[in-house]
């Protein structure tokens, strides 16, 4: 509830309309590129949007440093970030839900089990298994199949286990960074935050290794039936979010090291980035259990 004696009313801003133009060029350019056109529009739009967002965040930071932001406005930013993360949760829920449906309904039905087992008539010889080494297509059409299953899948107890340890550790390190920031110990804050960024980088590197392994040696690809589909879409979107989170934390680190930003009692930029980081960490735990361990 409002607690201010008088209200803050913002000035006009050119940022949103420019951000719109950037976003539009990016979306239009992406569609154009995927449909076989050139990629220039997409990259122009992406670059434009990124620079607008740069100026946008810079403006917000400048306003806050100048003391223009009331406690109320700061709370609005907190609400905003919280609900944004909830929207991300629901985005991942769609893909986890798809995995659930495929494993519990569509694959068993295609193999002749349950209420809709009659569909097995179309895919003779297809059997229910997970990982799905033999797709319905491959079972029914052999060598002429469009979707051929993977030869093998990623063993959860090697790279993914390491990645789990790395990401869980990074959640702890970012928490320590927060603790030291609240104590006002900038040196230790920078150190722990720097450690978190490095862990994030290592995770992305190992994930890239895993993808290389999957594509080069295991025949596990986006096209290898529904196992590859769910595997790459879930881990891929997670990887994209880790990359974004690492960039966010890196920017926070640079803000602290170079510009001496953040005060012990005023550092929501960092806090928001760390919330985001904890969120991608939780998603990973879900992935490790449902995609890797239960999927192997």
């Amino acid at each position, binding site marked *: 509830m409002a607690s201010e004696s008088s209200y803050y009313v913002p000035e006009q801003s050119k940022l949103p309309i420019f951000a719109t133009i950037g976003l539009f060029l990016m979306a239009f350019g992406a569609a154009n590129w995927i449909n076989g056109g050139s990629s220039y529009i997409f990259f122009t739009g992406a670059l434009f949007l990124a620079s607008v967002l740069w100026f946008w965040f810079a403006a917000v930071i400048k306003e806050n440093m100048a003391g223009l932001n009331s406690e*109320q406005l700061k709370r609005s930013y907190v609400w905003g970030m919280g609900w944004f993360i909830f929207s991300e949760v629901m985005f991942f829920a769609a893909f986890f839900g798809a995995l659930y449906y495929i494993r519990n309904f569509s694959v068993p039905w295609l193999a002749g089990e349950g209420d809709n087992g009659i569909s097995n008539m179309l895919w003779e010889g297809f059997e229910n298994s997970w990982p799905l080494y033999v797709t319905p297509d491959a079972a029914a059409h052999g060598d002429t199949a469009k979707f051929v299953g993977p030869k093998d899948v990623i063993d959860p107890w090697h790279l993914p286990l390491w990645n789990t340890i790395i990401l869980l550790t990074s959640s702890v390190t970012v928490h320590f960074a927060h603790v030291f920031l609240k104590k006002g110990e900038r040196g230790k804050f920078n150190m722990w935050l720097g450690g978190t960024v490095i862990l994030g980088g290592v995770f992305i590197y190992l994930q890239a290794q895993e993808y290389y392994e999957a594509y080069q040696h295991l025949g596990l690809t986006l096209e290898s039936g529904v196992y590859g589909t769910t595997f790459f879409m879930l881990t891929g979107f997670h990887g994209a979010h880790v990359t974004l989170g690492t960039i966010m934390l890196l920017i926070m680190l640079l803000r602290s090291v170079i510009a001496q930003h953040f005060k012990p009692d005023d550092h929501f930029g960092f806090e928001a980035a760390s919330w985001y980081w904890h969120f991608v960490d939780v998603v990973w735990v879900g992935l490790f259990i449902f995609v890797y361990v239960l999927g192997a």
Partner: protein
Amino acid sequence: MAHGPQPGLKRWLYTTNHKDIGTLYLWFSFAMFFLGGCMALIIRAELFEPGLQIVQPEFFNQMTTMHGLIMVFGAVMPAFVGLANWMIPMMIGAPDMALPRMNNWSFWILPFGFAMLASTLFMEGGAPNFGWTFYAPLSTEYAPPSVTFFIFSVHILGASSIMGAINIIATILNMRAPGMTLMKMPLFVWTWLITAYLLIAVMPVLAGVVTMMLMDIHFGTSFFSAAGGGDPVLFQHVFWFFGHPEVYIMILPAFGIISAIIPTFARKPLFGYSSMVYATAAIAFLSLIVWAHHMFTVGMPIAGELFFMYATMLISVPTGVKIFNWVSTMFKGSMTFETPMLFAIAFIILFAIGGFSGLMLAIAPADFQYHDTYFVVAHFHYVLVPGAIFSITAGVYYWLPKWTGNMYNETMGKVHFWMAFVGLNLTFFPMHFVGLAGMPRRIPDYALQFADFNQMASMGAFLFGAAQVVFLFNVVRTVMGGKKASEQVWENPQGLEWTVPSPAPYHTFSTPPILR
């Protein structure tokens, strides 16, 4: 605090003012309403007679698809967001929306997103032609190339909706004037709080499902392809997980508007305020667990059919609470029938008809008869046209004097109402009959015996379209001038918005208002 609106185009491009942005949303929605309406008239013109007269089937399919998409995402949703922008800060005593720059961004994405969607009409292979529900594999394997542009336009429109919803939640939870406790908020604010929550819960799922389509079409995945182990029915589950709450997103704010208008013209306080709040929350919760009632004929396990049937029927309980409360508010009230009240009463009666046909459709065994017929078209147009559209219209007439400082022309308002009322019933009521008799939806041609009812429907549609021209004329006239409206506008209406001058000042409150 003194700064007022900037002159010229800059005011609209760079604005951070909730009233400016509300106005932009409302005019944009009005424009889309006419665009989508013209497409509906093309459909109705073709269906005036059996056989093919005016358009080819391919184009007919593009029209049904684009009509649905434009009305849902371009007309109804932005209109409610526009009303939220205008009214919520005034109703809760806030200076503006919580995040004003993001507010502007949410709006400006819309015209760009729809320009992209509309541009598909001129692309090779034509616009999306797979219905607004874009079921796979029609929208994946058999789609025109423009589907890629459709997917990305849905992505940015969804981003706009999510940002708008976050803004509304932050405003309501953080910007209320001292003393404005949650249970003192006007119902329009309450319904929007719950709607915004639904939006954030389901728009990302829509983004997810179009992403799956994109991957299936261009990158060889097999979410919706049985050959790879996926299932086209999976598309329907994910889509309707978004799609069903979406229909409540289009009706909950309408409940809020009606709950504001009925007490004013019945001159009685709203009956059962707290039960209205709880009923809204209950409807929102139930809306998240009923999605598969759109898919009874797709071959679900019997347990699924039963669960979704009973869960769907449960929704009629909180909805019935609302209807009961509105009727009780009017009971022994000293009623007058100005244009907003006419639309509000028509809303209650006609929305109830849409609700009853919804109950019929909810009965799984009976739905096998109704599925994909004009009965379904009649049902959802009865909840959307006299539901969403009438409530928006009622809200516009109700608050227009507050926005512009001028009274609208009451006679013209009544003419608008009766033309629209007769037009829409003439259009959609006969669809119940042809639907029950087996006329399939989304087909440009039909069997001879359906001709009479279809001709009635087509005439009604053009009458309804003409009514909206009267509406446009009335609104423009009121914006330009007219009889000055008082601060209260109506006789003793409730709410903070009626305590400020008409037109409401550019910045409504410079200090928090005192609540009694």
